[in-house]
């Protein structure tokens, strides 16, 4: 399917597959992002994949809209599925202790489940990183069991602790930095998702498969002391 190409201001373009269903659109976004990055031209700064669209950021001192539009159309003329990089699977430990899981009881109650059942459902599902966004390194994960879908909190928290694992609507995510946030917090990982000083600053990439496994408080502390901790 041919995507729409629209200007986003005078220095970016949005390429979107809005009429496709979620998974087909997402797949198209992944393929197209890879194609564009492989054939990147001078003046194109970066390509940012989102759920049903991607954004091409360019230097408007070097490229005109027409040149960007033509380049995108040419790159996407023959997109093939076979070109995708192999998927990585990354396992992330989560401590679901009440001390970290401020909203676990509330989520359980909303779905008439016990807290243990919420933890079991959450840590037994297969997730895929749909997008990195909101704040540096924050992964939006698809694959949340439908029994756990929970609307965002009516009033966001001013500060969500770094590493908080949370549910927002049909998605789950991990707060990679201490930021404000409105998702329901059900646990915390000691793994540091974003560290600007690291060579690979962001642990996850769009398209990665994610598995959570439950750890207890001692294991959490142990992990923090051997890996310098989440913050």
């Amino acid at each position, binding site marked *: 399917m041919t995507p729409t190409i629209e200007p986003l*201001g005078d220095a970016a373009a*949005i390429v979107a597959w809005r009429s496709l269903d979620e998974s087909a659109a997402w797949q198209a976004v992944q393929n197209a992002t890879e194609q564009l990055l492989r054939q990147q031209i001078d003046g194109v700064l970066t390509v*940012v994949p989102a759920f049903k669209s991607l954004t091409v950021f360019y230097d408007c001192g070097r490229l*005109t809209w027409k040149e960007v539009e033509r380049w995108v159309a040419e790159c996407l003329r023959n997109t093939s599925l076979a070109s995708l990089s192999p998927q990585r699977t990354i396992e992330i430990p989560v401590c679901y202790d009440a001390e970290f899981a401020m909203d676990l009881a509330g989520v359980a109650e909303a779905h008439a489940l016990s807290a243990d059942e919420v933890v079991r459902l959450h840590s037994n599902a297969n997730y895929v990183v749909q*997008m990195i*966004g909101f704040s540096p390194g924050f992964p939006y994960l698809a694959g949340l069991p439908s029994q756990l879908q929970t609307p965002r909190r009516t009033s966001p928290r001013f500060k969500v602790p770094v590493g908080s694992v949370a549910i927002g609507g049909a998605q789950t995510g991990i707060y990679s930095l201490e930021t404000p946030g409105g998702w329901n917090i059900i646990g915390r990982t000691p793994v540091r998702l974003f560290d*600007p*000083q690291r060579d690979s600053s962001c642990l996850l990439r769009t398209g990665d498969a994610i598995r959570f496994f439950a750890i207890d408080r001692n294991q959490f502390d142990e992990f923090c002391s051997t890996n310098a901790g989440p913050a």
Partner: protein
Amino acid sequence: MNRLQIIRAGLCSTVQDLGRARFRHLGVPCGGAMDRMSHELANRLVGNSDDAATIEMTLTGDEIQFADDTLIAFTGAEMEAMTISGGEVSLAVPQNRPALIAAGSVIRFQAARRGCRCYVAMAGGVDVPVVMGSRSTLLRAGFGGHCGRALIAGDELPVGVPTHAGREIHSRLSALSSMSVIQPRWFVRPVELPNSNLATLRIIAGAQTALLKSLSLERLLDASFRVSSQSDRMGYRLTDQPLALDRSEDLLSEGVVSGTLQLPPDGNPILLMADCAPTGGYPRIGHVISADMGIAAQLRPGQAVRFEMVSLDEAQRLFMQQQQTFQNALTMAALVRFRPCV
């Protein structure tokens, strides 16, 4: 190696360069100097390349002391500056031209009289560590610049090694006299500042501009908005003229960029600025054109602003034209500094 010390800090002074344009796919904002041309101008005046880091001061300035004789220039918002020695004001330091500050003397930057952001460049640039390809401070994420935060009194920052051009300007000025501030009589024309009564920003349409109620669309293009005090490097809240869409759409997060005018449910638009996230989920009702982002960077809280719609072609033409004029001005500045009598 030369160092600078912050004796007293302004409201929000941060180390900035051209930002991190290539890490948006990791959710990292581009950031960098809000008013790029003023940042570049300050750098050129002391012989730096455009990507050297400057100090971006907001509304009020800092007091800064340099360990060695230092060639500086400050541009952008209109600010007065003077050197202080023994607690007494000694000499005024003029804006928009290079000035040589004697080792140990303190330069005091006052409150901005016009505009919001003033850039101080020093030959060699602020040499804080490069993090993800940039020295820019990203306040919200707490990294980059000096310790990932705004400068406070007592901070000591390294100053880099001046370029050949920087050293040449330095030696020409130091040959002039032995006062504690030495500057040439020439100066460059500063970058345009917003009209303080009513600033105008030109916009092009956004994806949801056509969904604005007809009265709201009229209002967007006629009325004057106010930059609220809830405005920072991430974005400005614009109040006084609430807008509404014909129908509300549940939007998935898509790309946004500095200049994007978002419309959150409360109807008060948000103008996204340099530190905005790379993606957002609010309707996009317009985009301030690149040529006017310098003006946007200089808007003060409380300031009135209106919008004028132009086409994408026009936006591009205006940007190219502005860059050409700016490059010509820089070339002139480079020529004039080699005149025998500065």
